[in-house]
């Protein structure tokens, strides 16, 4: 159990940091990811760990958790020097990491996931009853309201994250490391997570918290550390700084928070219209979300925001339009003519692109080069003679988007799996931009992207709209939708609940539309 900490509110980390990492350096072939980085966390402290995409945050945390070895540098816990050769070492010392990408086994139960590798019971037999009992105790502590025998596959993302937290707590951790825990959560889920983290703090457990949503830092964190290009760029107490100050440390210059669309859109031709999309839940896939009579239009050059809570059916609508999931009924009309879209390749042939919400599962080929990943949907634009791909055109394409999106990479030959999370997202975006679609649907386009890059992505979407492309933006961040969209469609439980002009709309108005009952179809 952690030592009792009584005076943490006043000055937690200045005097006796629980954890101190000093002079940490780490190189990968061709990249210096960390250069002599110092990092200290006090007991019972919520510590924001910040930096641009590729700054080296995940790398430092992997070193802390024993998943990677540093080239140089030392780690001390409670003032005693330690070495974490394996994740087990770190866990035994009370440091548990929840990675940017979850590591749960989807077909095992909550209890089995919580105790995986440390099953309770006798030497040979697992005591399921005991494990479920223990899991239930921990779940209650963090407000996870699910039977411990539930399969993880059937949980929402936020609940899966709570399972990760439950696992961390079951290990009697003193420091819980969370790499971008909020990027996949809706606002209300974030609030729930913060309640849990505050509870942990009251128990004296420290949290290291990586996020690209800087408002969250001021909401919950005590101290912060900022990295820039693998070096320390600043650290201190959160109340003594500001968002602008942190951004300056992160990027080394001033950046606006959100790009603003200047109401430049004037009604023109309808690029895409969907009418009465319906999908019933199949017995084989009980967790699927139903669609009821989803209809909306988007014009050429318009940015349409799709707002709703998790499970509202935004992603499902997008996937149905794109031909990724089958529909029971409904019409998709592209440029005035009804289109038959049975597969993503049909959709692409109609000029529709979709940036899916889960880059790792649905978009990236982690074992392939950036070049290959980036050009995958645009082979028609880079073809050379006969069946060949023109290397010159492909290189030019990659170079073009590397510059436009400021993708941080060593070369096009680098494996996409070795990029930082945010830079991976940029590669996915580039793939769809390279296709030059007429209608582009982007599902959570800025998930895991840093502040600077976020503005770049927003500007890019605005630029695309200006060129006459119809853009549909799905986002859980209302400010993002509000700042970009010409028109906003709200959804709830698979139904459209509102369709309002973007300029002039407010967060409160949208929240009401997103949470109120839909006018039932007659």
């Amino acid at each position, binding site marked *: 159990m952690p030592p009792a900490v009584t005076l943490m509110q006043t000055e937690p980390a200045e005097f006796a940091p629980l954890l101190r990492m000093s002079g940490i350096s*780490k*190189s*990968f*072939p*061709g*990249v*210096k*990811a960390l250069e002599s980085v110092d990092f200290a966390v006090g007991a019972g402290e919520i510590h924001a760990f910040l930096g641009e995409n*590729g700054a080296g945050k995940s790398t430092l945390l992997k070193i802390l958790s024993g*998943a*990677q*070895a540093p080239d140089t540098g030392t780690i001390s816990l409670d003032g005693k020097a330690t070495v974490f050769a394996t994740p087990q070492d770190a866990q035994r010392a009370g440091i548990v990491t929840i990675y940017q990408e979850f590591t749960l086994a989807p077909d095992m139960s909550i209890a089995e996931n919580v105790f995986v590798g440390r099953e309770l019971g006798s030497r040979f037999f697992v005591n399921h009853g005991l494990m479920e009992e223990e899991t239930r105790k921990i779940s209650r502590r963090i407000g996870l309201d699910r039977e411990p025998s539930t399969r993880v596959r059937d949980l929402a993302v936020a609940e899966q994250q709570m399972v990760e937290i439950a696992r961390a707590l079951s290990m009697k951790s003193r420091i819980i490391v969370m790499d971008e825990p909020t990027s996949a959560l809706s606002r209300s889920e974030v609030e729930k997570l913060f309640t849990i983290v505050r509870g942990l703090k009251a128990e004296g457990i420290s949290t290291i918290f990586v996020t690209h949503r800087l408002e969250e830092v001021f909401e919950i964190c005590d101290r912060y550390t900022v990295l820039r*290009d*693998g070096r320390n760029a600043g650290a201190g107490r959160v109340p003594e700084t500001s968002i602008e100050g942190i951004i300056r440390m992160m990027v*080394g210059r001033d950046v606006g928070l959100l790009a603003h669309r200047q109401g430049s859109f004037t009604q023109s031709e309808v690029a895409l219209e969907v009418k009465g999309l319906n999908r019933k839940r199949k017995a084989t896939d009980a967790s699927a979300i139903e669609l009821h009579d989803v209809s909306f239009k988007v014009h050429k050059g318009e940015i349409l925001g799709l707002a709703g809570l998790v499970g509202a059916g935004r992603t499902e609508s997008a996937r149905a339009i*794109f031909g*990724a999931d089958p529909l029971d009924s409904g019409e998709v009309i592209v440029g005035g003519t009804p289109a038959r879209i049975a*597969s*993503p*390749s049909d*959709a*692409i*042939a109609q000029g529709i692109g*979709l940036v*899916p919400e889960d880059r790792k*599962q*649905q*978009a*990236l*080929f*982690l*074992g*392939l080069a950036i070049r*290959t990943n980036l050009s*995958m*949907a645009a*082979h028609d634009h880079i*073809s050379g003679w006969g*069946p*060949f*791909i023109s*290397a010159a055109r492909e290189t030019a394409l990659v170079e073009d988007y*590397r*510059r436009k999106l*400021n993708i*941080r*990479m*060593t070369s096009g030959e680098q494996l996409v799996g070795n990029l930082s999370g945010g830079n991976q997202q940029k590669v996915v975006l580039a*793939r769809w931009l390279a296709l030059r679609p007429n209608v582009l649907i982007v599902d959570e386009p800025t998930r895991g992207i840093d502040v600077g890059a976020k503005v770049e992505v927003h500007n890019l979407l605005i630029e695309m709209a200006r060129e006459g492309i119809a853009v549909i933006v799905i986002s859980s961040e209302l400010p993002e939708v509000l700042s970009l969209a010409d028109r906003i469609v709200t959804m709830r439980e698979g139904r459209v609940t509102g369709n309002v002009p973007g300029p002039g709309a407010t967060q409160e108005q949208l929240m009401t539309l997103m949470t109120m009952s839909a006018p039932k179809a007659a």
Partner: protein
Amino acid sequence: MSTTGSPAKATDTSFDAFGFIARFAPLIFLLVLMAVFAIVEPRFLSSINLFNVMRQVSITGLLAIGMTFVILTAGIDLSVGSLLAFAGLVAAAVAKGGMQDRFTVGDDAVGYGWQLAALAAIAVGLAGGYIQGFAITRFKVPPFVVTLGGMSVFRGAALLFAAGGPISGFDKAFTWWGQGKIGPVPVPVIIFLVAAIVAHIVLRYTRFGRRVYAVGGNPEAARLSGLNVTGIICSVYVIMGFFAGLGAFVLAARLNSAEAVAGTGYELTVIASVVIGGTSLFGGAGTIFGTVVGSLLIGVLLNGLVLMNVSSYIQQIIIGVIIVLAVAFDTFAKSRRKRG
């Protein structure tokens, strides 16, 4: 490097020695093995013996090229040996002018000539591959099961077709494809190397090749990128069938005979060649260069063991152990790379 922002700093100091060794491990192992055999058994390095090794390798090597496509999509084809036997018999029958005339010999044979024989072998291979590819993609039966079935079906078909005996004795023009030489180089070796170069170019530089890697790397992402995933998977089995047919023709030409038990156990050698060459059984990673090296490695190993009078039973054991070691090494190298 970019002019705006601050890209990751490139350093020349950190040469990734481990990555280098992991990447060229099969080649290094091949050279070491050759050196050892050369010292222990001087006959090994004679040019006759070396070309002999290459010629022996060329048939399974051809199959291994096809198998590389299949394994790149995370598939497997166990039916190669059986399909090869069946295709070889059909080709032989065509060369002989039909089953009635199958006992005429050599240049007296009345048959349809090697051109039609080769076409027949390849047609049988393509058809066999297509049927299996269709079953895999259309009925969603795992490749392991479909081709395990195919292994039995094609072997049965071969036995039925041969009606109990081999078909032997072709004209010179036919056997040239297996026994002839261009300069000092055996014809099968040339066929193998040309096929390897073409396959390398297809995988490396064409849209199709890209898509094969993509489908193996992440099928869902491939589908959402607009790729015709089922079409690509089906086509790799057709390609495998093509190489089984081509291999059947060359083998019949080399042995001047086709028989129903030809190619027994080839699936092991072929899959081993591909895997030892570094192609991942999980799909999405691998090269034709690796497969060629893997094929040579197995060929050299077997040849050296024969020269050293090691029994064929022990050879089997050694090959089996090496496959497991190769996969274990690959997995180890990957986790090493991840840990950095």
